[in-house]
């Protein structure tokens, strides 16, 4: 079976701001029509990567191709293939939603720009607000308009830089559905995010960007195997109990918990280790505590992945 050629190929990408090296050799490939999540914490270099792919910035080294066109040598051709929805909404406040869309349509030379604008307003549930100034829009509406503007020209490859940051849970879910439907219609989507659950829900393929390199890369299932699964959160009542527990459980990796007098204990997820922990605490009369399994967070993932390196 022959694979279709990939939509995005990134090889050994490097980039520095003055003497701060942000990208230290980034590699990944995105298949046609798939959703690819670039996962990383604040300052990881997500926006920098996206800006290079969207022809806003040139890399110092390495190369990147969109649908076979080099982002440096063939920037003009690349711009015909892509659209970028930046981290901060780039919409004209003093124009209406419809006017914002029509301007993009005119610049993209769409023969059906008015119909296309109406279609997108409808799809993004902005029809009622279509003729209001964007200045009156909520954050969620602005984000949706921003993405609608990116889709005006029906680009085959779409970049979304943190599309859900700052959205409330309801708008976040709506955005997820929108991203899914983009991929369903054959568009290749590269999105960046700081949230593991978002990448998990949306992406066919996830790459974790940390300190300028991709430290993990794979499908959700492949990646999950690498994530810590057996974290147990122990919540004590006193500092004395907490200290005692730390002494008793020296055999396990322990991190400070999110609340006072709490710790996160890393286990292999098996019953044996779990019983061992409870027994040890019970035996030494550290019994006044509650426990709960903890969902691995992006931070846990990082710590585990970095630990592996």
């Amino acid at each position: 079976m022959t694979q279709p050629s990939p939509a995005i190929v990134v090889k050994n990408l490097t980039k520095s701001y003055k003497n701060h090296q942000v990208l230290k050799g980034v590699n990944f490939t995105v298949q046609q029509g798939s959703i690819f999540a670039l996962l990383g914490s604040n300052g990881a270099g997500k926006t920098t990567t996206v800006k290079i792919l969207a022809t806003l910035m040139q890399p110092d080294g390495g190369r990147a191709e969109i649908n076979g066109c080099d982002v440096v040598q063939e920037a003009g051709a690349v711009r015909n293939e892509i659209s970028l929805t930046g981290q901060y909404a780039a919409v004209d406040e003093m124009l209406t939603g419809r006017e914002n869309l029509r301007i993009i349509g005119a610049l993209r030379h769409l023969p059906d720009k008015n119909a296309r604008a109406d279609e997108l307003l409808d799809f993004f549930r902005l029809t009622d607000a279509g003729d209001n100034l964007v200045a009156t829009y909520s954050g969620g509406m602005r984000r949706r308009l921003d993405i609608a503007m990116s889709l005006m020209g029906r680009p085959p490859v779409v970049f979304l830089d943190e599309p859900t940051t700052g959205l409330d849970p309801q708008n976040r879910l709506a955005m997820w559905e929108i991203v899914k439907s983009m991929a369903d219609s054959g568009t290749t989507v590269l999105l960046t995010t700081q949230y593991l659950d978002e990448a998990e829900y949306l992406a066919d393929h996830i790459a974790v960007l940390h300190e300028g390199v991709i430290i993990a890369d794979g499908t959700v299932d492949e990646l999950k195997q690498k994530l810590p699964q057996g974290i147990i959160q122990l919540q004590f009542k006193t500092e004395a109990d907490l200290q005692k527990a730390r002494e008793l459980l020296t055999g396990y990796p322990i991190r400070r918990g999110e609340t006072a007098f709490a710790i996160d204990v890393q286990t292999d997820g098996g019953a044996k280790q779990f019983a061992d922990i409870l027994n040890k605490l019970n035996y030494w009369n550290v019994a006044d505590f509650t426990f709960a399994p903890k969902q691995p967070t992006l931070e846990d993932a990082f710590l585990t992945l970095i630990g592996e390196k």
Partner: protein
Amino acid sequence: MSTMNLARREGSLLGDSMTMFGRSLKLSMRSPEAIFMALIVPAVLMVVFVYVFGGAMDVGGYSVVNFIVPGIILQTIGQGMPAIAVRVNSDMTKGIVDRFRTMPIAKSSILVGHAFATLVQSAITVAATIGAALLVGFRPSAGLIEWLMIAGILVLYIFMMAWLAVVSGVHAKESESAAGLMSMIGILPFLSSGFVPTETMPWALRVFAENQPMTPIINTMRALMLDQPLPDGALRAAILWCVGLTVVFYGMALAIYQRKTRR
């Protein structure tokens, strides 16, 4: 390989600039302070100069209002410029330019659009100023040819100012300094032949006033409006200043824009 057969296009400067012009014009017509500047300021300035300062002004053989109309026109055009600079600056700093730069369009079209929209905004200002002047006793004696020449000079002047505003907007790091530079330019008409004859000025000021671009523009417009003979070389100096500075500012705006958006 593209999944959709999008026609490959590079931008066309003319077409894209027209779209950007439409955008800038809408933005400028919807900003309340721009409308205020365009309509109210000319009227206020007219009243202040004619009724408040007018009695104390000695402008030779002219009526005060007939004398100061050209200066007031340049002044009110200048009043609209900080808003243009701020608009250009906010496009630069708020990600708007980045969105356009990822699209296959002519690079400088966004700046050209702002410059042409300035022409329309300033034309409204000029009409409001002349209207206010007529109400307070301005009595021009220009014929059609003279008015067309005045319009031509004003178009050149507005372009010059518009590109200076664009320079200020692309250069500034934030909107305050973009507006600040353009506000300073607003002083220039006062240091010209616009409000008092240069002969009455102290020596140093007079040398400056007689050699800065506002003076030949004002002298030419005044002679045309009042149907008097054109002062020697004033028309030529006015045109040379405007065209020369427009070319300089246009070049600067593009150079700064290129530098700031260099990849």
